[in-house]
């Protein structure tokens, strides 16, 4: 029967039961890498945007080169380049560390650009009002500009963060035991697509809450604008 062929190909109960623990372990790896990437990537982006706001020409030139380079290159190319390239210069990083490093640098590049756009979008009058009361440049940035800039960046930053953390699936090409890697390995072992279905469901289970959290953040950070 058509129906049972479909079930047997994509949702075979014995396979689900047998490999669920493997997929669950892979989920933990994905979560671990994703959380680390979000923390370091956003921190790096914010730090660079703050540095950029001091408008030191040579430093900003370097920031722009980094940001544009990492936004232009496909993350898969970077993952392969770093993983297979670094050993040639005597640096051996575990595959998980390579994945974390590359995705953090990619998210950092996008986040810098988003934070920078947020900083620029705060009206000049805010700077002037703060400076006219005697606040210094860094104080104005910290207490007046960034709180407003960050609110403006929540929606684009959430979208970008979700897009880049999904790239943890690229770990499969360098042997990181994350969801996609475990799912494809298991799939070729059992000769059935059920492990891939389990992988897809694992991603949905992981990222639906993230998407909902992003939505909540957007409402939480929106404030009635004058």
């Amino acid at each position, binding site marked *: 029967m058509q129906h049972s062929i479909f079930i047997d190909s994509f949702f075979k109960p014995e396979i689900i039961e047998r490999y669920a623990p493997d997929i669950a372990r892979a989920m933990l790896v994905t979560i671990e890498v994703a959380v680390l990437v979000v923390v370091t990537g956003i921190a790096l982006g914010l730090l660079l945007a703050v540095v950029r706001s001091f408008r030191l020409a040579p430093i900003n030139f370097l920031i722009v080169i980094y940001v544009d380079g990492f936004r232009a290159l496909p993350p898969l190319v970077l993952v392969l380049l770093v993983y297979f390239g670094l050993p040639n210069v005597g640096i051996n990083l575990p595959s998980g560390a390579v994945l974390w490093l590359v995705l953090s640098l990619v998210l950092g590049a996008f986040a810098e650009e988003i934070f920078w756009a947020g900083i620029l979008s705060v*009206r000049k*009058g*805010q700077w*002037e*009002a*703060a*400076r*006219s*009361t*005697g*606040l*210094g440049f860094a*104080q104005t940035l910290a*207490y*007046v500009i960034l*709180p*407003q800039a960050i*609110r403006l960046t929540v929606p684009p930053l959430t979208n970008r963060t979700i897009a880049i953390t999904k790239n943890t699936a690229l770990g499969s090409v360098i042997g990181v035991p994350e969801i996609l890697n475990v799912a494809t390995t298991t799939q070729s072992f059992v000769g059935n697509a059920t492990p891939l279905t389990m992988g897809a469901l694992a991603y949905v289970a992981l990222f639906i809450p993230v998407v909902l959290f992003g939505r909540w953040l957007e409402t939480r950070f929106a*404030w*009635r*604008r*004058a």
Partner: protein
Amino acid sequence: MAAAAILDVRALRKSFGTHDVLRGIDLAVAPQELVFMIGPSGSGKSTFLRCLNRLEEPTGGSIVVDGVDMMAPKTNLNAMRRRIGMVFQSFNLYPHMSALGNVTLALRKVLRMDASAADAAGLAALTRVGLADKARSHPAELSGGQQQRVAIARAIALEPKIMLFDEPTSALDPELRGSVLAVMRDLRASGMTMVVVSHEMRFAREAADRVVFLEEGAIVEQGPPGLIFGPEAGARTRAFVSEIGR
């Protein structure tokens, strides 16, 4: 003119590229004096005010505030700026903070007051502008007139030596201007030294000690309001005043 001027400006010049916005302004303001500046748009009034606390960098000339040379490299600009209150046409309140937060930010971060002292000083400033009951409101919850009064409170909480007003009522609907002008009158009565750029001619007539008419970056004429707004004023001044008065 009293010997110890609070503000003493000499030969102030400002150019944007090849365009000379200020062409050598001399102005001394005595303690407790209210100087009112009028002039066509583009005459340099706002640029002049913004040069005084160096939000705008002057091209040349000297500015002395309360005996301190604002142009000297060793002058601590941040320390001086809190002695020069500034009120903007567009209020520029911090939208993410309550009215009290707006007023106390500099008290906490510049004067290093602890939270309770800053709140007390901030509430006192809000009381002076009649908005103590709005301390917890955010700017978006306040009318334009109330926002501008909070902005005035933010400046006076720092106990400035002089207050600069850059078209404080121009962004307000006519029915909201009165409350802001009333606060400015109170400030004047309390002895604050003020430089006001505005088109509120009635306020100038009633409250100004001196009216300065600026055109194309230079002072054309100055004197008590009775003179500037009267028949003895120069032809250009009279033309401008009648234009505004219509």
